[in-house]
């Protein structure tokens, strides 16, 4: 109980800092903060599948890329305004996730992971090769957000609201009967099936929801970056949410956010010194998997929760002792 109260204070403090950030931070920091928010949403959509349903997808970049490309194409080709374009991107991401997911959720474990990867790679070759539609490996340039979002601070607040609402929705989804059922199917497929639940259908629904939120993240990124390229659909992009989530702690709701913040900041700092980013990331992942299986937040929670629990028992003991004394 004290844990949830503490996390509520943390959340309020974090929200205040997030709201006040553009008032005291330099534009480059605000710029990085936007990226962190987008990546956090991307990673959290991944974790809906990973921790929520026990499905490790290696092709989540596919939906991020579809979202970014859909928004970019609609805005540049037919001049659609940004908001309907973002909405269309989510619909598109959901549709692609529905088609690919239909095949993927028929498999489990490693097979699932590999098939998601294969579909993402298929999408990557489509985006890279079709010069007429997606500009091939050049991508699409000159994506302009509407005038009132041109200033970096305004785009920051816009992203904060969209991502904040998405977090709230994801929280509600994970804690709804639907989310609980997903958790159950993760822990035991057989038992969940025994109580009459069609696990495959639940997994497909989770896959589509994750795809919708990932493509929303992509659709936020395209006008922010002003350009999209096939890189957004590549396996490197698909590995980002995996690394962020694991780094932050997959078993906690806010883990992907912490991971996204650490990962993005690290990236911003590291590219100033080295181009061997994958080596650094691989090393961190290696150490993380071997020595820090719960991620940063999992580690912290263990420490503090452990301490709080210990304090808790002491207090109960003390209360027990005093009630005994009064009984005497």
């Amino acid at each position, binding site marked *: 109980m004290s844990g949830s109260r503490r996390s509520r204070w943390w959340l309020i403090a974090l929200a205040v800092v997030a709201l006040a950030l553009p008032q005291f931070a330099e534009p480059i920091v605000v710029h990085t903060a936007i990226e962190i928010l987008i990546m956090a949403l991307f990673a959290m959509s991944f974790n809906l599948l*990973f921790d929520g349903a026990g499905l*490790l997808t*290696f092709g989540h970049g596919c939906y991020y890329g579809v979202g970014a490309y859909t928004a970019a194409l609609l805005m540049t080709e037919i001049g659609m305004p940004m908001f309907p374009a973002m909405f269309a991107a989510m619909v598109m991401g959901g549709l692609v996730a529905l088609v690919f997911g239909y*095949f993927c959720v*028929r*498999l*489990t*474990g*490693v*097979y699932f*992971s*590999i*098939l998601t*990867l*294969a*579909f993402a*790679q*298929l999408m990557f*070759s*489509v985006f890279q*090769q079709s010069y007429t539609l997606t500009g091939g490996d050049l991508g699409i340039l000159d994506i302009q957000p509407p005038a009132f979002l041109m200033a970096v601070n305004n785009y920051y607040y816009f992203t904060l609201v969209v991502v904040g609402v998405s977090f709230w929705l994801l929280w509600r989804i994970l804690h709804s009967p639907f989310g609980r059922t997903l958790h159950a199917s993760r822990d035991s497929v057989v038992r969940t099936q025994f109580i009459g639940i069609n696990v495959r259908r639940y997994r497909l629904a989770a896959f589509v929801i994750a795809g919708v939120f990932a493509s929303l993240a992509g659709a936020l990124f395209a006008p922010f970056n002003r350009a999209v390229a096939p890189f957004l659909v590549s*396996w490197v992009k698909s*590995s980002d949410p*995996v690394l962020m989530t*694991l780094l932050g702690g997959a078993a906690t709701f806010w883990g992907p956010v912490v991971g996204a913040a650490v990962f993005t900041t690290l990236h911003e700092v590291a590219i100033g010194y080295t181009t*061997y*980013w*994958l*080596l650094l*990331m*691989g*090393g961190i*992942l*290696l150490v993380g*998997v*071997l020595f820090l*299986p719960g991620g940063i937040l999992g580690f912290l929670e263990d420490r503090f929760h452990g301490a709080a629990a210990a304090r808790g028992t002491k207090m109960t003991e003390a209360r027990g002792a005093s009630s005994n004394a009064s009984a005497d």
Partner: protein
Amino acid sequence: MTAADVLGQFLSGLARAGVLFLIAAGLSFIFGVVKIVNFAHGALYMVGAFLTYSFRVTLGVPFWASIVLAAVCVAVIGIGMEVFLFRRVYGRPVADQLLLTFAMVLIIHDVVRLAYGSNLRSVPRPPLLAGAVFLGDVIFPSYYIFIVLTGTAVLLGFWAFLHKTRLGKTIRAAVGNREMVACLGKPLPWLFTAAFAAGVFVDGLAGAIGAPLGGIRLGMDFDIIILAFATVIVGGFGSLPGTALAAFIIGEAYAFGIWLMPAIALSLPFIIMAAVLIVRPWGLLGRSGGGEL
């Protein structure tokens, strides 16, 4: 389109299938015995190709010695990975194993970039195999024939190793029942290491003999790992003949696809894979139920 064209394309597909088979066979074998999905398999294949370049072109070692040396080096790297890293996560959730091998993909990718840069490299074919065999109008490059023969030899060699040698039989027993084999006093961890080394050796060999086929470049690691997974899945995890059949189908599909419908050639393996997964999730020659891990 003449019969000669078709035959020529067929042979080129067969050569591709030979390389693909070697990689996929190693991947499938390691999975079958050690129960670990080695994402770093493609990275090690790339290391095999680059090491062949180093031995052959930079150091001037004869071709045949180069490919053997490269494959042995890759096997040594693989043994190091298995002993120092992968052993720690046997028995941990599948996700941890995937992530650890995935970390190796990232690390190996950048280490190769550090050592060789991002330029395209190539290894010349050995003089003995630089020519071609003419059969009427049809031209068979000798090197393709060499690859097909190597692939066949490895298939037979693997089979003989597993069915005729003591170590191979013990490994097969360990696949069937680990506890029993451990109870009989066999050193299970070292059996796993041996199996891992064998799979990775073949993988490095694939990189080595594949090197003179086309360019050696950064990024081939990821292209090939996905093709290798597709091959293993189409054939059925753990089935060596299945892997051979799948490598043949995918190699030929690519060869004819790039010729007849270049726009979708790169996507063909995934289309085949999706089709197989829908009809037979456990692969063409795999056992039913293999899809449940």
